[in-house]
C-alpha cells in the first residue's frame, strides 16, 4: 500500500512537469510570435501604362525592407512584403486588397502607384478603418477627407493647384509679364485635376485664356493640336500630359515651331531617364513640375546618397529607371514614415499608427515630412524646374546639378529662369 505522502510527491512532480511543459510551450509560442514577420501588403503597377513608375517604386520599397531587416526589423520582427501586379488597372484593386487582408492576413497596407489606383482603394481602407499610405495620388482624399490617409507626393494642402502654382507664379514674375494662356491636357484623371488647378491660377494671376482643350490619351499625332495652339499666339502654354503625350507634344512643338514665352507645366515623364537620354537638347527651356533634382540642397539630405547608390546598383538588373530621381526617393520615404510610426506606437494598431502619423514630424531621405488635415504634406513642395544647357544624350550629364535647375520655391532655388523659352533653345 502506498503512503499518502508519496502520492502527494507524485502529484506535485506531475503538476510541476505539466507547468514546465505549459510554460515552455507558451514561451515557444512567444518566441514564434516575436519572430513572425510583419507583413506589408500592396498592389503595384508592374505591367501596363504606369509600370514605368510602379516598378522603380517597388524596388525602393524592397530596398527599405532590406535596410530595416538588416537592422533587425521593426519591433524585433522582420518585414515581409506581399504584393501583386495591379496591371495599372483600377478594377483589380478591390480584389487584390481583399486577398491581402483576408487571405494573406497582412498587418499593414500601402497603396500602389498613382491617382487612378488609389481611388478604388480609399473606400476599402475607410470601410475597414485601416491606415493607408498613398503613393503619388493627386487629390484622392479631397472628397472623402478620410483622416487615416496619408499621401507622400509633396503636393501640399491644396493638391489641385500644386502642379501649376509654381509655373504660374514664375510666369507672373517675368518682365514683360506674359498675358495670354493656352491650357491643354489629356482626358485622364491627373491631367484633368491639374487643369482645374491651372484654370483657378489663371484667374488668380489675371492672365487671359485663349485656348483650353483636352485630347484623348491614345492620340498619335499632336501636330494639329500644337498648330491650333500656335495660331492663338499664347504667351504661356501649360501642358498636363502623361509620358507618351509629353513626348508627342514636345516633338510637335519643335516641328511646328511653337515658341511661347513659357512652355511646360505638368508634363509627366520628361523627368524619366529614358526620356532625358532620348530627347536630350529638345528639353532645353521647358519649365516643368518635379519633386526631386540632383541639386546640392537635395543631395545634402541625410540618407539620400546611400539610397541612390543602392537603387542605381540594383536598377539595371530590375530593368527600371537607372537614375531613380522621380518616384523612388519618395517611395522609400513613405516606408520610412510607416516604419517610424510602427516603432513610435510600439505596435500595429491601425488607429494608433494613424494618430501618430498625424501628430508627428518624420525625418526621411527627402527631408522632414509633416502631414496636414487632408493627409497631404502640411506644406507643399512641388518644384518647378527648367531644363537648361543639355548637350547630347549622355546619361552622365544628368547625374549632377545644372541640367534640371530648380526655379521654385525660393527655399530650394538653385538657379534662374532662362526667359523667354526661345532663349533657352539657342
Amino acid at each position, binding site marked *: 500500500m502506498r503512503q499518502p505522502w508519496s502520492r502527494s510527491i507524485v502529484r506535485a512532480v506531475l503538476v510541476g512537469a505539466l507547468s514546465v511543459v505549459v510554460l515552455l510551450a507558451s514561451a515557444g509560442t512567444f518566441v514564434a510570435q516575436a519572430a513572425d514577420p510583419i507583413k506589408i501588403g500592396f498592389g503595384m503597377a508592374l505591367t501596363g501604362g504606369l509600370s*514605368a513608375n510602379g*516598378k522603380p517604386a517597388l524596388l525602393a520599397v524592397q530596398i527599405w525592407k532590406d535596410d530595416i531587416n538588416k537592422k533587425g526589423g521593426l519591433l524585433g520582427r522582420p518585414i515581409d512584403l506581399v504584393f501583386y501586379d495591379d496591371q495599372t488597372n483600377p478594377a483589380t484593386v478591390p480584389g487584390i486588397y481583399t486577398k491581402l487582408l483576408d487571405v494573406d492576413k497582412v498587418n499593414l497596407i500601402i497603396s500602389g502607384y498613382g491617382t487612378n489606383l488609389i481611388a478604388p482603394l480609399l473606400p476599402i481602407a475607410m470601410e475597414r478603418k485601416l491606415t493607408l499610405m498613398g503613393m503619388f495620388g493627386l487629390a484622392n482624399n479631397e472628397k472623402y477627407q478620410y483622416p487615416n490617409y496619408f499621401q507622400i507626393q509633396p503636393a501640399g494642402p491644396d493638391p489641385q493647384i500644386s502642379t501649376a502654382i509654381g509655373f504660374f507664379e514664375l510666369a507672373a514674375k517675368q518682365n514683360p509679364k506674359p498675358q495670354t494662356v493656352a491650357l491643354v491636357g489629356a*482626358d485622364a484623371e491627373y491631367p484633368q485635376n491639374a487643369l482645374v488647378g491651372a484654370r483657378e491660377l489663371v484667374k488668380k494671376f489675371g492672365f487671359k485664356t485663349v485656348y483650353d482643350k483636352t485630347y484623348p490619351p491614345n492620340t498619335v*499625332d499632336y501636330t*494639329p493640336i500644337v498648330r491650333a495652339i500656335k495660331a492663338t499666339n499664347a504667351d504661356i502654354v501649360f501642358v498636363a500630359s502623361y509620358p507618351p503625350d509629353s513626348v508627342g507634344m514636345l516633338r510637335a512643338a519643335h516641328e*511646328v515651331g511653337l515658341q511661347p514665352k513659357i512652355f511646360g507645366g505638368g508634363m509627366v515623364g520628361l523627368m524619366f531617364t*529614358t526620356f532625358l537620354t*532620348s530627347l536630350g537638347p529638345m528639353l532645353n527651356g521647358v519649365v516643368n513640375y518635379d519633386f526631386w533634382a540632383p541639386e546640392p540642397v537635395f543631395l545634402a539630405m541625410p540618407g539620400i546618397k546611400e539610397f541612390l547608390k543602392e537603387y542605381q546598383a540594383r536598377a539595371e538588373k530590375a530593368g527600371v529607371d537607372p537614375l531613380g530621381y522621380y518616384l523612388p526617393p519618395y517611395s522609400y520615404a513613405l516606408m520610412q514614415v510607416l516604419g517610424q510610426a510602427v516603432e513610435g506606437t510600439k505596435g500595429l494598431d491601425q488607429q494608433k499608427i494613424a494618430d501618430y502619423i498625424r501628430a508627428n514630424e518624420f525625418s526621411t531621405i527627402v527631408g522632414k515630412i509633416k502631414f496636414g488635415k487632408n493627409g497631404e504634406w502640411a506644406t507643399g513642395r512641388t518644384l518647378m524646374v527648367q531644363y537648361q544647357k543639355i548637350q547630347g544624350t549622355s546619361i552622365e550629364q544628368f547625374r549632377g546639378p545644372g541640367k534640371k535647375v530648380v526655379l521654385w520655391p525660393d527655399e530650394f532655388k538653385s538657379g534662374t529662369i532662362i526667359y523667354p523659352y526661345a532663349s533657352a533653345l539657342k
Partner: protein
Amino acid sequence: MFAWDLLANAVVAGLLLGGVYAAVSLGVSVIFGLLDIANIAQPAFLILGAYAAYVMYNAFGLDPILSGLLFTPVFYLVGAAVYRVYYGSFERRGEESLRGLVFFFGILFIIEVSLSLKFGVDYRLVQSGYVGKSIEVGGIGIAYRLLVPCLVGLAMTLALHLFLARTFYGRAIMAVSQDRLALRLMGANPVKIKTVAFGIGIAAASLAGALLITITPVIPSTDRDYIGRMFAITVLGGMGSIGGTLVAAIILGIAESLMSTFFGPSWAQAVSFGVLLAALAVRPAGLFGR
C-alpha cells in the same frame, strides 16, 4: 476670318497620319480581311517590330525604318510558323472560331510579358536625325517624323497591292480568300498559300512597328491602343481591300486632324469612329468591300 492655312495644315497632317495608319493596318487587312483569321495578336507583332527597331537603333545607331526592312524576312518566318501552329492545332480540326481566338490572345500576352521581362516597362523611343525637324511648303509645315513613315506606309500599300494583283502567289491569296475549295481543285495548296499570306501580314506589322517608334514612345502594352484602330480601318476600307485600307486610314487620319485643329482634340476619335459607323450604315461591306 477663316484660317485657311490651318485647314490646309490640318488636311496635310491628316494625310500623313493616314499613311501611318494604313501601314499599321495592312497586316490586319491581309490576315483578317483576306484570310478571315481574327488575329488579335497582330498589334503585339507591331510592338515587337518597334522593339526590334529600338534594339538596332541603340546597338548600331541604325535608322528604325532600315531596321524594319531588315527584320521583315525574320517576321515573315515567325508569321508563317505561327500560322502553321494555328492551322495544325485549330483550323484543320474546324475549331478555329473560339479556340483560335484564345490562341491569339495567348500569343499577345506572351509577347507583352516577354517584352516586359526583357526590356522592363520603361517607355522606349528612338530619336532619329529627322525627328523634331520639318519643312515648309507653301505655308504648310510637314514634320519629317510623320512624312517618312507616311511615305513608307504608302510604298508598303502600293507594293502589297501590286503583289496581290500581279504575282501568282498574290492572286492565289486573293483566290483562297474567295473560294478555298476551288483553289484546291486548281491544284494549289490553300494551307501553303495561307502560310505565305499570314507571314506577309506579320512582316507588314513588324515594319509598321518600326515606323511607329519613330512617331511615339512605346511600352509593351502599347499594342492595346491600336487593336481598335487597326480593325476599324480594315472594316471601313472593306474586308481584304488593300486600296480600301489606305482610303479608310486617310479618312480617319483627316477626320482626327480636322477635329483636333478646329473643334477640340477630345472629339477627334469619337468623330472618326462616327464616320466609321455612318459609312458602315450606308455600305455594310465597307467602302471597297465586295
